[in-house]
């Protein structure tokens, strides 16, 4: 059988499972927060056009509005100033081959419970590799923190205090390692942002955004169900909407997992 016929067969008999790595887009989903005087990303909103009523008796539909960076979403290189002049840097020009790939899942859930400001370091990644093997080129590295389990409590999910947001993320040396040495396709997190909540204070600030997008790589954030993926062996699909000159987009992220 061909590869795709094999895949279809495996899906049918459930030896390959599909895991939804996406949160539901809802008005309650916490939106990214920037300093009050800066431009703000619109939250997800939906308004009925009709619902089998006098506005349209036989059908139900809505208008929705949101920013490109709402809910579970994709960051294109053009999102960051470091990626602004790269070719094929927006949602409509990114090669479609980059919108899927093998996933390496780095479990930082215990560390993130103990420290909301936990930073994933190069040393941590090297220890992970000693157990699971080297991170392959063109793979998606997903930082599992189980932060997604807080999503029903938006206050805990955002986790703000007077000094800003406290959520885990990657360190500068981890991003340098992943981008320049391991040459990953992209990096994904369960929190709002590929960077840590306090990443503005790192040097350089926002290393995930700055280094990934500067190298023409991609980000995924607000991912869900990463605890259902194995450390290696999963394959993910993450195609953003084809928005002209889009800096990102909400999307459905799916993971394929082989049953062992």
């Amino acid at each position, binding site marked *: 059988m061909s590869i795709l016929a094999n895949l279809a067969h495996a899906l049918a008999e459930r030896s390959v499972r599909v895991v939804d790595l996406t949160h539901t887009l809802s*008005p309650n989903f916490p939106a990214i927060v920037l300093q009050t005087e800066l431009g703000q990303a619109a939250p997800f*909103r939906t*308004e009925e056009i009709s619902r089998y009523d006098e506005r349209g008796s036989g059908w139900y539909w809505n208008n929705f509005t949101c920013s490109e960076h709402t809910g579970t979403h994709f960051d294109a290189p053009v999102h960051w100033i470091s990626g602004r002049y790269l070719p094929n840097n927006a949602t409509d020009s990114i090669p479609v081959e980059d919108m899927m790939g093998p996933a390496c899942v780095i479990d930082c859930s215990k560390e993130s419970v103990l420290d909301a400001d936990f930073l994933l370091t190069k040393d941590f990644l090297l220890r992970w590799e000693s157990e699971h093997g080297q991170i392959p080129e063109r793979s998606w590295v997903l930082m599992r923190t189980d932060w997604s389990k807080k999503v029903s409590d*938006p206050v805990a999910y955002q986790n*703000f205090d007077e000094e800003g947001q406290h959520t885990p993320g990657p360190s500068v040396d981890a991003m340098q390692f992943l981008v320049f040495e391991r040459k990953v396709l992209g990096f994904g997190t369960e929190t709002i942002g590929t960077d840590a909540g306090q990443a503005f204070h790192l040097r350089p600030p926002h290393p995930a955004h700055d280094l990934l997008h500067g190298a023409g790589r991609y980000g995924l954030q607000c991912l869900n169900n990463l605890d259902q993926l194995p450390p290696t062996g999963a394959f993910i699909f993450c195609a953003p909407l084809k928005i002209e000159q889009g800096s990102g987009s909400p999307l459905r992220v799916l993971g394929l997992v082989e049953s062992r």
Partner: protein
Amino acid sequence: MTAPLQRPKRKNPVVKTRHPTLPPWTRSRVALGMTAAAAEGRFELQRCEQCATVQYPPREACCRCLSEELPWVEIDGLGDLISQTTLLHSHDLYFRERVPWRLGMVRLDAGPTVVVHLHGDVTAPPARVRVACKLDKAGMAVLVGFPQEDVPNMADDRQLREFTCDPKFRRVFVTDGKTATGQAVVRALAAAGAELIWVGHAEPWKRVPGLVDLQALPQVTLLPLDVTDPRSIKEVASQVGPKVDILVNTAEYHRAYGISTRAGTDIARMEMDVNYLGLLRLAQEFGPVMKARGADGQSSAVAWVNLLSIFALSNFPAHGTYSASKAAALSLAQCLRAEMKPAGVRVINVFPGPIDDEWNQLLPPPKLSPQAVANAIVAALRDGLEDVYPGDVAQEWRTRLKESAKGFERELAAGSGT
């Protein structure tokens, strides 16, 4: 002496809620001049420019010399009660449900003799009284005779409460408790004796000072509410809508930009989304249920308060897009007033000058304290007003706009106004 108002019993669930009815409300066009003054809490009559006769009812010409120069002047309302009667029967649907109803004839010191609704504490004639001009359930000017000196529990008079929206023992919904003004409004309502106060708050992850402290007030319940989210409004309306006697919309979005001082329309869109569409969404969800409760016993739905801005009346270019959103909200509030009228629910528009908050940081004093705005709202409810202009800046704007709206527009364009 008026018996103090008692906390109302809970609603008997097997008794049908009465339909709201209105007192007779046809008035001549010229008589609406009294309504215009009463909407702001003043008693005005026409005084002839030629012969100084003060006349009532208002007419097109002087009743003594036929002059048509009849400017409106404020009347102190003092006078003598010369007769009284108590209505025990009426064919009018509104008064039929409210008899016995006390009426009196007052000879005003200013000249004319007028028929008034008589407060229960006015003693039998002859007696000195103070006549005030109030709006009735139909939104029309009527005259009310009060005792010359205040007496205890005066506001609790059964007849007077038909003309006022006193928060005492009423259940109030304040749409945004995260702003300093919203919090001041909640505290002022609690101090005024509101029975229950529901307080909306959006984006719970953004902590603001003061919101948690409100929960220490026994009347207060916090409810998640974002006026930009139709589903969130629907949810809150389904929880508390049928109990709201007074709604105070304090939700607003304010940034200090004109057209050229901010690229794009994202801020203007947010201002419209909160200040204009937010009001529209609230009115669509809470309006119908409040209209249905316009005659629901002692604690009927009585008032809807909009926190607008004096910038709604003429554009303040430094806050140009905010001004435009408030002008839109004012226009919609007039629509709401028209739609709420059949139920006798008063729509009160509050037009403060700049409030002393972070978005008016660069405006020079005088600026209104949030407390002053809150006090103005409670006073407007107690007095049954319709349009309120709290603070010196708002009063100044009001005067200037009356003198010359075009001239004032020019001055605002040149950078004055506050």
